[in-house]
C-alpha cells in the first residue's frame, strides 16, 4: 500500500506497476481513496466518489492480469471526471442546483473510452456551475481549494479535476475547456493540462456550454501522462457530428523527438498585454531561451486580432450557452418548483431558483446578443472577429510549429479576490483565442513565483490536429527544465 504514492507516481508508473505485479489495480484504487480521505476535506476536489465503478474497473484489470492478457494502456490508472460528463452510476450535476441529484442515463464517449482503456473512475470533480468561471467559486456545492495554498483558488472551471491530480488523489483527470477551463486551472495548480484541437475528442455526453468552443481534455503530472490519456480518448465518434475523422496520432511516441529544428514563436503582443505579471512574462522569455538552447529556431510573432478575443468570446460563448441551457426547464428533469401556477410560472421560477448568478448572467448576455435587432451588432460582429483570429493563427503557423504565451496573466489568486466578473474574465485572456480558433494548446508548469511560491504555467499552442508536435515541444521543455512541481499539500500527507 505504502508503495503507491499517487502524488509522486505518474500514470505510466502506476500502469507499469500494475502490469508488473508490483501492486494490483485494486490497491491503486485503495490508495486513491485513502488519499482522498486524507486531503479532500480540505481540497474539496470531488462532489461524488464512485467506488463501485472504480473497483469494478480495478477488478477487470486484475482479472486480465491474472489471465495473462495484455493490459490496456491506462490499466489501473485512477482518474477524476469533471462533473459535466455523463457516466452511468454517477450523478451529473455540473455543480448546479438545477441538476442536483440528476442521474446519468448514458456514458460520455470520452469517459467511456478512458474506462475502456483501463482507467479507474474514482469520482466526479467539482467545477464552476455549468463551466462558467475561472476559480471554481461558482460551484453551488462549495469551492475547491488549491493544494498549493488552501487560501487560493485552483482556477476553473475544471478546478476539481486540476486539484485532484495536483494533490495526488488521482493520476489523471478529464476536464473540459471552452475558454481556458483546462489550461488555466492547470497553470494555477502546476499540472500539465491539454486542450486538444476542436473535434479531436468527441463532445458526446459532456453537458454543452459553448458547442463551437467546448473540448474535453486531460490533466496529468507529466506530458507523457496527458499524451497517454489523449491516445485513449481521441478519435471520431458517430455520436458527435463535429468530431473529426483525422486519424489519431501516436502521441506518446512523438515525445522523445526533442526540440531541435522546431520553429518556436513567442507571441510578443500578447506577452506585452497590460496586466500580465512581470514574472510571468519573464518566464515565457526564459522558456524561449530553453527552446533555443535545445536547438529550436526561436522567433517572434504578433497576433493582433487576438486583442478582440475576450470581447468576441463573451458574445459567442454566452450566445451558445443561452441556447444550450434552455433545456433545463424543469419539465423532464432537474429542478422544478412544486407549486407552479402554469407552464410559464414553472419555467421562470424553476430556472431562477436552479441557476446560480453567473449562469443567469451568461444566459441573459447570450439571449440579448441573439435578439432581433441586436444579432448583427453582437453575434455577427463577434463571428467576424473570430474569423480574423483564425486567420492570424493560420498565418502564424505558416512560420512556426508552436507558439508560446503565458497560460494566465498571474498565479492563483485568493478567494473573493476577483469579485467583479470582468476582472475574472481577464484571467482567460491568453487561453480564449485558442478556443475561438479551434487550435490545440497545452499548459505546462514553467516555474514557481518567487514571492508566493505558486506555480506558473507556460501555454504552448500548435496548429489544428498537430498534437504530436505540440506534445513533442512540451515534453522537450519539461525534460529540459526538470521541474517537478509537487504542492506542499502533497508533500506532507496527513
Amino acid at each position, binding site marked *: 500500500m505504502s508503495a503507491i504514492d499517487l502524488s509522486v507516481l505518474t500514470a505510466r508508473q502506476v500502469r507499469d506497476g500494475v502490469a508488473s505485479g508490483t501492486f494490483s489495480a485494486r490497491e491503486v484504487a485503495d490508495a486513491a481513496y485513502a488519499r482522498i480521505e486524507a486531503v479532500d476535506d480540505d481540497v474539496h476536489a470531488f462532489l461524488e466518489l464512485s467506488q463501485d465503478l472504480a473497483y469494478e474497473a480495478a477488478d477487470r484489470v486484475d482479472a486480465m492480469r491474472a489471465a495473462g492478457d495484455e493490459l490496456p494502456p491506462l490499466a489501473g490508472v485512477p482518474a477524476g471526471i469533471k462533473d*459535466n*460528463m*455523463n457516466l452511468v452510476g454517477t450523478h*451529473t450535476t*455540473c455543480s448546479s442546483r438545477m*441538476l442536483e441529484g*440528476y442521474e446519468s*442515463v*448514458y456514458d*460520455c464517449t470520452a469517459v467511456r473510452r478512458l474506462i475502456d482503456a483501463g482507467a479507474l473512475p474514482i469520482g466526479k470533480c467539482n467545477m464552476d456551475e455549468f463551466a462558467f468561471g475561472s476559480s471554481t467559486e461558482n460551484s453551488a456545492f462549495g469551492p475547491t481549494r488549491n493544494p498549493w495554498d488552501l487560501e487560493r483558488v485552483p482556477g476553473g472551471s475544471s478546478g476539481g479535476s486540476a486539484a485532484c491530480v495536483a494533490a495526488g488523489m488521482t493520476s489523471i483527470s478529464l476536464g473540459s475547456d471552452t475558454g481556458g477551463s483546462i489550461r488555466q486551472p492547470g497553470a494555477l495548480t502546476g499540472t500539465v493540462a491539454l486542450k486538444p484541437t476542436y473535434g479531436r475528442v468527441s*463532445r*458526446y*455526453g*459532456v*453537458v*454543452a456550454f*459553448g*458547442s*463551437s468552443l467546448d473540448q474535453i481534455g486531460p490533466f496529468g503530472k507529466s506530458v507523457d501522462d496527458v499524451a497517454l490519456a489523449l491516445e485513449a480518448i481521441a478519435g471520431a465518434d*458517430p*455520436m*458527435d*457530428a*463535429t468530431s473529426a475523422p483525422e486519424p489519431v496520432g501516436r502521441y506518446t511516441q512523438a515525445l522523445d523527438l526533442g526540440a531541435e529544428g522546431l520553429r518556436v514563436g513567442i507571441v510578443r503582443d500578447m506577452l506585452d498585454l497590460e496586466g500580465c505579471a512581470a514574472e510571468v512574462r519573464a518566464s515565457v522569455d526564459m522558456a524561449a531561451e530553453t527552446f533555443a538552447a535545445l536547438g529550436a529556431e526561436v522567433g517572434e510573432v504578433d497576433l493582433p486580432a487576438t486583442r478582440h478575443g475576450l470581447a468576441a468570446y463573451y458574445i459567442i460563448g454566452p*450566445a*451558445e450557452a443561452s*441556447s444550450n441551457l*434552455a*433545456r*433545463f*426547464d424543469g*419539465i*423532464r*428533469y432537474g429542478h422544478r418548483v412544486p407549486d407552479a401556477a402554469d*407552464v410559464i410560472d414553472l*419555467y421562470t421560477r424553476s430556472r431562477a431558483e436552479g441557476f446560480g448568478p453567473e449562469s443567469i448572467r451568461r444566459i441573459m448576455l447570450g*439571449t440579448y446578443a*441573439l*435578439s*432581433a435587432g441586436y*444579432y448583427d451588432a453582437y*453575434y455577427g460582429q463577434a463571428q467576424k472577429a473570430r474569423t480574423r483570429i483564425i486567420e492570424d493563427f493560420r498565418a502564424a503557423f505558416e512560420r512556426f510549429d508552436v507558439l508560446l504565451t503565458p497560460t494566465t496573466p498571474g498565479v492563483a489568486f485568493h478567494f473573493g479576490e476577483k469579485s467583479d466578473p470582468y476582472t475574472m474574465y481577464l484571467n482567460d485572456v491568453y487561453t480564449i483565442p485558442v478556443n475561438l480558433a479551434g487550435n490545440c494548446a497545452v499548459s505546462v508548469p514553467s516555474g514557481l513565483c518567487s514571492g508566493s511560491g505558486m506555480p506558473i504555467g507556460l501555454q504552448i499552442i500548435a496548429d489544428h490536429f498537430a498534437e504530436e508536435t505540440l506534445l513533442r515541444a512540451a515534453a522537450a521543455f519539461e525534460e529540459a527544465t526538470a521541474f517537478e512541481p509537487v504542492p506542499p499539500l502533497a508533500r506532507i500527507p496527513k
Partner: protein
Amino acid sequence: MPKDRLTEVLERYEAVIGLEIHTEITASNTKMFCGCPVAFGGEPNTRVCPVCLGLPGALPVPNEAAIEWTVLAGLATECDIALWSQFHRKQYFYPDMPKDYQISQYDLPFCSGGFVDVEVDGDGVGERLDLGGALPFVGPEAVAEDGGYRTRIGITRIHLEEDTGKMVHVGGSEGRIAGATHSLVDFNRAGTPLMELVTEPDIRTPEEARRFAQKLRAIWLALGVSDCNMEEGSMRVDANVSVRLRGSAELGVKSEVKNMNSFKSLHDAIAYEIVRHAEVLDSGGVVVQETRHWDAGAKRTSGLRSKEEAHDYRYFPEPDMVPFTFDPARVAELADRLPELPDARRDRYMADYGLPKRDASLLADDRETGCYFEEAVGLVGDTDARQIANWMLGDLAALLNAEGIAIGQARVTAAMLAELVGLVEDGTISGKQAKEVFAEAARTGDAPGAIVEDRGMRQVSDAGAIEAVVQGVLDAHPDEVATYRGGKTGLLGFFVGQVMREMRGQGNPAVVNEVVRRLLG
C-alpha cells in the same frame, strides 16, 4: 357557408393565399438526429433516446437520408438546390420541445425557388372570377372549354427540421388546453424528420389551394418520401389568408389557419376565412393578424388566443453540426433517381392508352393506383387499357371507398382484374357476368377464372345451342311473335330477356340478339 356567398365576396375582393405544408419524411426509418424509429402512435415515450429527449450532453447527428429525400422533393418541384446550407436553431420554450429549441433551417434552406402547376376544372373554376377576358401576361392559362385553367404556384422554399412531441391536455374539454388540470407529453414523434414547404402568395381561390395540396401530395407519393396521411398528421397544411379590394396592390392583414386534416377542410377553412375577412372589412373593422383554428364540425375558425405573442426566435447557426455542401454532380445523381411524376404519368396514359384526361389523372395521381393500372395493362395488353381503367374507376374505386382501404389492400389484385377483363374480351363471360364475378372475387379473393368454373358461368356463344332456346321461347309466345311481326319491333328486348332467363344469363348477348332477330325476321 353557401357557395354564392363566397362568389359574391370574391366579386369585390381578391383573396391572397399562401400555404405552409409540413410533411413528415416517413420514408426515413429513423429520426432526424438520432437512431430512434419513425412510426405513428405507440405507447407514449417508448421511441426515445438521450438525443431526442434533449438530455444533458446529448448531440444531434444529421440523418443523411432525410436530407437526400428533401433534395429529391426540391428537384421534383423545380427548386434550386443549395450547394451550401446549414441548420439553425429556432428558439422558444414549449414543453413538447425537448431542447427548447428546434433544429430547423433559416436563411439557407436546402431547396428554394420552385413551382408547381395546378389545373382547376369542374366546380372550382367558378371561384376564379378574373380568368375571363384578357389574361394577364403571366397568370392562369385556359386549358379547357369549360373554363378549366392552369396556374403556376411558386414555391419559396423547402427546408428540413425536426418535429416536436405531442401534448395531451387532461381535464379540459376535448383535450383542449382550456380548463385542463395538467398536461402529459409524448416524445415519440419528437425528432421525426419534417419537411416544411412554403409557397409564394400566388393562390387566389380555395379550390386552387386544394388542388395545389392534392398535387403536392401526389408528387410526394410518387417520390415515396412520405405516406402523407393528413389524419395522422404526417402531412399538415396551414394557410395564410388575406383579402384586398379588387384592383388594390396593397396586401391585406393575414390570418393563419391551422388544423385542417382533409383537403375538403382546407378548402372550406380558406373559404370561411375569405368571407370572414370581407365581413370584417365591410363593417368597417380591421382584420387582426392571428392564428386561427379550423373546427371541421362547426365549420368555422376561431382565434387560438386573444393576444398574439410576438416571438423572437433568436435564430443562430446550429454549432453542433458542420455546414452541408453538395457538389453539382451529386445533385445530378439525385435528379437521376427521380421517378416519373404524376403529370408526366398522366400525359403518358393519355398518349399511350387514349384515356380521357380526367381518368388518366385519377390513375396517375396516386403512385399505387398507377402501379396497379400498369401491372394489369401489362398482363392483358394495351388495347384493353380502357377496360382496366373503367373497372378501376368504377367497381374497384367503389369497393375501396366502401371498405375504406388502399388499393394495395384490395382482394382483387391487378392480376385478377386483368384476368377478369380477359375473360370478357375472349367472350368467356358477358359484361354483366363479369360484374358478378368481380363482386365474388372481392368477397372471397378467389381468381375470376376459378369463380367462372365453379359457378358454371361460362358464356354460351354457340349459335346452334342458342337457336334451340330461342325457338322454344318463340313457340311459347305466339301472340307476342305476331305483334312483333306486325311492326312492334320494340318487343325484341322482351324476347332477348326471355332467352337470357332460360339460359340463366349465360348466353352471349351479341349472339342471342342476332339469333332472336334472325328467327323473328
